[in-house]
């Protein structure tokens, strides 16, 4: 029997994977992938809880997140292409121009 907890645990695992990716990856493209995983972890949680309570608001919210993620990728990829053309690399440590 698959219960709400299983979904939430899946969501948490996905989230941790995403977070790990955000921390460890130095490539900007992979960073973007990691954030997508983070967003989808949240989506799984929303959908599961929406089903559990019989309230469609959560699923609706998940759709919004999908839409936002899509537009984010569109804009983000565009920016990244420009960046790659200029610098020839997507390593985030090379993005730094300030010296605190």
């Amino acid at each position, binding site marked *: 029997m698959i219960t709400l907890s299983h979904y939430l645990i899946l969501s948490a695992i996905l989230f941790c994977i995403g*977070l790990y990716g*955000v*921390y460890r990856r*130095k490539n900007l493209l992979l*960073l973007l992938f990691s954030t997508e995983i983070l967003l989808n972890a949240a989506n799984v949680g929303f959908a599961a809880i929406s089903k559990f309570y019989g309230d469609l608001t959560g699923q609706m919210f998940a759709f919004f997140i999908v839409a936002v993620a899509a537009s984010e990728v569109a804009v983000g990829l565009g920016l990244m292409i420009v960046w790659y053309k200029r610098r020839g690399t997507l390593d*985030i*440590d090379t*993005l*730094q*121009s*300030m*010296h*605190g």
Partner: protein
Amino acid sequence: MEHMETYLYIALFAPLVGSLFASLFADKPKMLVTGIGTSTLLFVSWVSSVVLLMHVYHGDVVHVKMMDWIHAGGLYIPFGFVVDQVSATMMFVVTTVSTVVHVYSIGYMDHDRSFNRFFAWLSAFVFSMMVLVMSDNFAGLFIGWEGVGLCSWALIGFWYERESASWAANEAFIMNRIADLGMLIGIFLVYWNFGSLQYDVVFAQVDGMDATILMMTTAFLFIGAMGKSAQFPLHTWLADAMEGPTPVSALIHAATMVTAGVYLVIRANPLYSLVPEVSYFVACLGAFVAIFAASMALVNRDLKRIIAYSTLSQLGYMFVAAGLGAYWVALFHLMTHAFFKALLFLGAGNVMHAMDDELDIFKMGGLSKKMKWTMIMMTLASLALAGIYPFAGFFSKDKILEVAFAGDHYILWAILWFTAGLTAFYSFRLVMLVFFGEERYKIFGFHPHEAYRYMLFAMSPLAILAVIAGFFEHDFIHLVSYALPIEEYEVSHTVFWILVVITQGIALGGIALAVYKYSHGGFSKKWEETFIYKLLFNQYYIPKIYDEYICKPYAEISTIMWKDFDLKIVDATVDFIATSIYKSGMASRVVQSGNLSNMLRWMGVGLLILLVAAILYSPVR
């Protein structure tokens, strides 16, 4: 009635206009027009004052409210002015002396490079003094009081490039500040207990007032008066104030400002007459200062300081009269004293000019040949000061002695009587040493000359008043009887004549002793070795005592407070706050590196913190 208001405003504001006009050219080289302009406006003010004096002579009072000033909550203070018989007398005295002094100063300050600045301050002083005497409430009086203090500071320190002058100016200002604190407390007490600062409102309620409150109020107000009128123990500034130009000494430190304390007591007479303890203290202090200051004048060698001590002594006389309830006598002596003392100072100014600002009277002598008119006028003033019939001082001073005797205050009377002798002696010691005897100035290479003729002309009204002012005694009594209690001090006819004769006797004796001694070579040098001479010559060591026991400990405490308290506690606290913020900024600066992976890490930390917070403080739980 309408036009009387106009005269009032003209009398009050003409000096201010003059002052503002002269101040436009304050840093310019000498312009004769500033001197003449201010003098003319002062004369206009004098004419208005005389018109007002005539108007109030038959009992009318001009009372105007110019505008509201402070109106907040229960506090209501209008800018109001009143010309009653007391303030009209004061206005007459102030404008007369200041007009004379202004004209005289055109000659005296002739070669000074700050000629214009001098007139700006001098007229500003007259304006402040007019505010002081014309105000119809304590707040306005206080403003004038501070105004004259400020102008006095600026004029004592007029030659500020001299160390001693700016020191004396600061001394005068600071000592007056100490006394003004007492005065302010007195004014607060008046407001608290009477609910108003208007004279008429306050004085209408005095009868029902608690005796302790009245006593505290009058005592605190008198502290203010002690500072301004340089009574013991706040007297040292007056002698040092002689650093200022001589016309300033004549106007401010003899005729007008220093009498403000006496004016305050006279003005507040409904309060003082209900508190015999304080009044008696006022009288005793006055008598003490009278003899104390006269004794210092006996041996001093400085021309102006001798006259300054005599001013102090005469102020003591006025306080005796005011303290014994004879307010009109105090006012009368204030008036006559203003005339002859201003004359004496202006004469001293002529002598100083002739002697290239030399002040030691032992370097003068025999000046009467060169300066006949100055000699005549100073002798007249000295006769008036000594209280010889028929000069002005006789009438007022004799009245004070009579009041003291009639009130059974025989000790006070004896002190004042003896002081009258001292006064006569030191006045004529000065006259003899300056104008007669051996021409010692020749040894020191001076070439004295008489002052400009118009300066002598300017002095002549004062000379005339110093001679005849006493004969207006009955008119004066009629005038002030509308405003002040006139009590008849009945002594029997015989006693009266005995008093007059013995007072005249000691005064003439003093003069005779001075004339005899100093025309025969003066006192022997042995005197200068005696303890009493040294005591008097060093002003009872009071300046030294103040220096040793007040100024030096104060400076030491200040140093300790500065080094131990201010630097180590106050500054350290402030610095600690500043440096800790600065250091934390330096430490957290690295966060703002612009490195995306670092930022993401911080974001993760923030997320974690928020998550923990959400769990701990979740409302569902």
